[in-house]
């Protein structure tokens, strides 16, 4: 079973994303900020990461840059999932190594389409 780490400081978003991704056949782990997420990844790299941008302690972009510098950190497919919806943010995310990008609000169809887009 493929694993997906859901990183978002909102418990509600994590819960919604978990439900959608479990229906798509993923095993889910959750983290509330980038630091927690990094700890998860160091313990066991997930296949995919659904990543919020604005979070306390460590935001999504900083996490992504650190992740990609880790041994094995280029492996997980990273999909941003954020309210930031302007071209500048999207380009910054892609430059930092994101594979796809979801603009909130999202629904199950969007998550499914984006995960299919990156081959998951």
């Amino acid at each position, binding site marked *: 079973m493929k694993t997906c780490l859901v990183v978002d400081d909102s418990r509600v978003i994590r819960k919604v994303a978990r439900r959608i991704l479990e229906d798509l056949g993923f095993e889910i782990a959750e983290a509330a900020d980038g630091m927690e997420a990094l700890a998860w990844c160091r313990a066991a790299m997930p296949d995919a990461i659904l990543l919020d941008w604005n979070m306390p302690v460590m935001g999504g972009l900083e996490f992504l840059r650190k992740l990609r510098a880790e041994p094995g950190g280029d492996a997980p497919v990273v999909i941003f999932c954020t309210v930031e919806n302007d*071209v500048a943010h*999207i380009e910054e995310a*892609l430059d930092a190594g994101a594979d*796809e*990008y*979801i*603009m909130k609000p999202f629904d199950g169809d*969007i998550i499914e*389409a984006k995960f299919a*887009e990156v081959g998951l």
Partner: protein
Amino acid sequence: MRPDDISLVISLCRARAGLKVSAEKTYLIESRLAPVARRENFASIPDLLAAIRAKREEPLIWGVVEAMTQGESAFFRDRAPFETFRNEVYPALSRARGGEPVKVWSAACAGGQEVYSLAMLAEMMRAEDPSVRIELAASDISARALEKAQSGVYSQFEVQRGLPIRLLIKHFEKTDDMWRLSPDIRRMVRWRRLNLIAGLGAVGRWDVVFCRNVLSGLEAPYQKKVLEDLTLVLPEDGVLVLGAKETAEAAGDAFTPIPGQPGFYRRNPAARAAAAA
């Protein structure tokens, strides 16, 4: 809704567009017609239908029919047909045409996502091989759908259905809460208002016809008619593309599935010879 109102909607849709509307789907009829009633300044759907019954005004009738034809649409819907077009269908046809453009028609284009997906795909193909030549056209029965499609403006929700993020930022510009497709891509498509059941004599020849998730919405006799008319549009080596859950069975053996390319059909020359004989 009253049964006679539902019957009126069903008979208008069948007569004008060959459209199959199920009497059980009252919620669908109501959700499609409520905006029409509002737009035309009627207090309710029954008021709108009463006016149609009384005056039989064409613009009102078409407002109803067009609203009922609206379908789901997404960029690169089902993905696989676009890969098949790029890797199998285009190269073969391009060779056969000796460098002349391969002509592709998106029939019943709705919001334009399919034809614009093909346009973006053509652009990607041309980046790899500058000799790629693809001519694109799109048609729909609905003037409103065509207007939206031509504008190339989509909501944030729409651009997240099937469109890879890199194509979004490459080809779209954000204006307020909407995303507008670049003029370069929009200019690649020619548009035409067309009712598929009214005959395809004036359409000309097209090498590839994308007609996905259209036939399944039509009454059986119209499915047959449209398929038979399409045999006159496609050259012998032309290709018809149907939706993932559709078949060409309504027209007997006029079309045969292309092995290994789900949804892709070729004309059956023997069938036309038989029909002509």
